[in-house]
């Protein structure tokens, strides 16, 4: 029988099925960070349990960490306690893959996973973080879990999951110049809405996806959760294999050959049935920005915010509440609007290619005086590349500073908070109320639109 890519990986990881209930799924790689894990370790302690397979969990501190002075003690005592607890748990449970602040493998969990070769095709991957979908770019089943489930994985290397429905989205043709993977994702979410893929696992396919680098594919899969999907995935191909090969934790020698032969079978068969299949033309996609307080409220940078009569009646109160928060009017165009902050970074757009795009645009130009810009690499690996490729010199000459790795202003648990009422053009993944600080107003965009905003101080079409 014809199988989808999803079916193949799922079926290979079924340990048992609960009668009339969920599937017991084996997990190949568990990523763990300081914010969603302490209560899970507490749970193990309370039950007198050990970690079942410590070598299958990779631990990094990223969410609640400063992006300056990481060599000094963390100032906020509550944050410091959380990081100390993380260290204590790693030691007490004998976790071999623990990367604290300052470690050369430390960084945003969804960036260090692929970077070090932990993420490999065909795997099941979980993390107490909804953007775990990022790893789907390698042809994996990767999804976010809650802390109770983190405890289950630590205790048994399994989770109980209901099999989701499958959706395939095909992007036909090529993306236009100046249009990025982030734009493709924001465009898709704007069409499907934030709940449009709830209950589904999405496979991204088509020419525009095939043409993407691994980093671009990670950006697309990263944002799957923003339309409610359990996860997103892309069939592995030569681009994938070339990326994985030679990385520290990737298979080597005969094991590589064996794995590669299996990975080449990981694609949806001809005639495989999806519960839903959608098609988009890549050429229709423009550089995108969001105007509201969820990632589905996005539009082409040249377009105008919808008017009230374009919104269905049940949603009007929420729509108006959202625009009131943003300080925008229905029907307004945002091009030329003055902004205050720019954030380049996060698991969505904190990889080297994002910094190259930004550097390429700002080279020989000067940062706008009215804008505060945070450039936050996703990992020390990315930071090193920024230096080695000479991008740091370009940033310095244009008036930008480079910060240290972490999730930073994406969720603003640290000091990187956008003040109330201020506008931030952000390459992160969520424009929810208060996401980047209480009262902060977030406009999501790709790295190129962010670069243009950093130079002009306004919302600017980078293609013009």
């Amino acid at each position, binding site marked *: 029988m014809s199988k989808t890519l999803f079916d193949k990986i799922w079926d290979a990881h079924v340990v048992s099925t609960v009668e009339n*209930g969920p599937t017991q799924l084996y997990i190949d790689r568990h990523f763990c960070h300081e914010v969603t894990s302490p209560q899970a370790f507490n749970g193990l302690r309370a039950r007198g349990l050990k970690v079942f397979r410590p070598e299958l969990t990779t631990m990094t501190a990223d969410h609640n960490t400063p992006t300056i002075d990481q060599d000094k003690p963390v100032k906020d005592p509550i944050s410091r306690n959380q990081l100390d607890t993380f260290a204590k748990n790693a030691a007490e449970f004998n976790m071999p893959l623990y990367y604290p602040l300052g470690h050369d493998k430390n960084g945003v969990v969804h960036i260090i996973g692929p970077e070090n070769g932990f993420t490999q095709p065909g795997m099941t991957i979980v993390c107490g973080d909804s953007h775990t979908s990022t790893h789907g770019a390698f042809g994996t089943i990767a999804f976010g879990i809650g802390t*109770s489930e983190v405890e289950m994985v630590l205790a048994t290397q399994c989770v109980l999951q209901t099999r989701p429905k499958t959706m395939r989205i095909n992007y036909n043709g090529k993306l236009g110049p100046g249009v990025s993977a982030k734009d493709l994702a924001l465009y898709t979410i704007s069409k499907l809405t934030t709940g449009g893929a*709830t209950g589904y696992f999405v496979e991204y396919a088509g020419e525009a996806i095939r043409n993407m680098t691994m980093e671009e594919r990670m950006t697309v899969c990263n944002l799957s959760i923003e339309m409610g999907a*359990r996860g997103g995935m892309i069939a592995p191909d030569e681009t994938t294999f070339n990326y994985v090969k030679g990385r520290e934790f990737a298979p080597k020698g005969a094991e590589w050959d064996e794995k590669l032969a299996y990975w080449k079978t990981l694609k949806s068969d001809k005639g495989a049935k999806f519960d839903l299949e959608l098609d988009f033309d890549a050429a229709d996609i423009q550089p995108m920005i969001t105007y509201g307080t969820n990632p589905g409220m996005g539009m082409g940078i040249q377009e105008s915010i919808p008017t009230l009569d374009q919104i269905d009646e*049940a949603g009007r109160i929420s729509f108006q509440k959202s625009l009131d928060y943003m300080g925008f009017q229905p029907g307004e165009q945002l091009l030329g609007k003055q902004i205050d902050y720019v954030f380049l970074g996060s698991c969505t757009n904190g990889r080297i290619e994002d910094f190259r795009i930004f550097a390429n645009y700002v080279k020989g130009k000067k940062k706008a005086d009215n804008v505060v810009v945070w450039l936050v690499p996703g990992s020390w690996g990315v930071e090193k590349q920024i230096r080695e490729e000479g991008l740091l010199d370009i940033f310095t000459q244009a008036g930008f500073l480079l910060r240290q790795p972490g999730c930073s202003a994406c969720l603003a648990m640290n000091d990187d908070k956008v003040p109330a009422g201020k506008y931030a053009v952000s390459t992160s993944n969520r424009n929810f109320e208060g*996401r980047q600080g209480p009262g902060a107003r977030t406009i999501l965009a790709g790295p190129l639109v962010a670069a243009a905003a950093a130079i002009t101080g306004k919302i600017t079409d980078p293609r013009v």
Partner: protein
Amino acid sequence: MEKFVTLTSTVVPLPIENVDTDQIIPARFLKATNKEGFGDNLFADWRYNKDGSPKADFVLNNPVYGGNILVAGKNFGSGSSREHAAWAIDGYGFKVVVSSFFADIFKNNALNNGVLPVVVSAEFLAEIFDGANKDPKLTLTVDLENQTIKNNANGKSESFEINSYKKECLLKGLDDIDYLLSKRELIEAYEASRK
């Protein structure tokens, strides 16, 4: 986990769509290392002014509304996977959340903490909002055994879906982890089969 069988309660209506987990519990409150106390910061940015005083226009601060059932607009719990959102709802005292649509991860997290998400039709939801607006003493009865929810103001009831395994867990107060730990041999056999 606490058992859940049946509940009759007044409701707290929140007729907003797409309530994300950053609204339920903002990220700056996620620095704790235990599960207690999150209820105090449930909906913090909608509930409190900058100086910590309550915002009079937010429903949790309106003394006419109360009870153990939160009723919210569609797509409740979207966004971050933080289980702290479920801990905050549970910690505040809600045992049931009613909406016409829930985000997946939130739904799982709620069930893993003994909080029952009940999906109702858009019409049923609209009638609760209307009814509670007219009479804040409106009550709902949620019966897990029979999988029904009744609006006691107009007498209408609906049945709701729940996975039979999860239903059993809630009725008996069992955690998933108890089940998984009982399957240790199967897990080891699976691992051996892949080598």
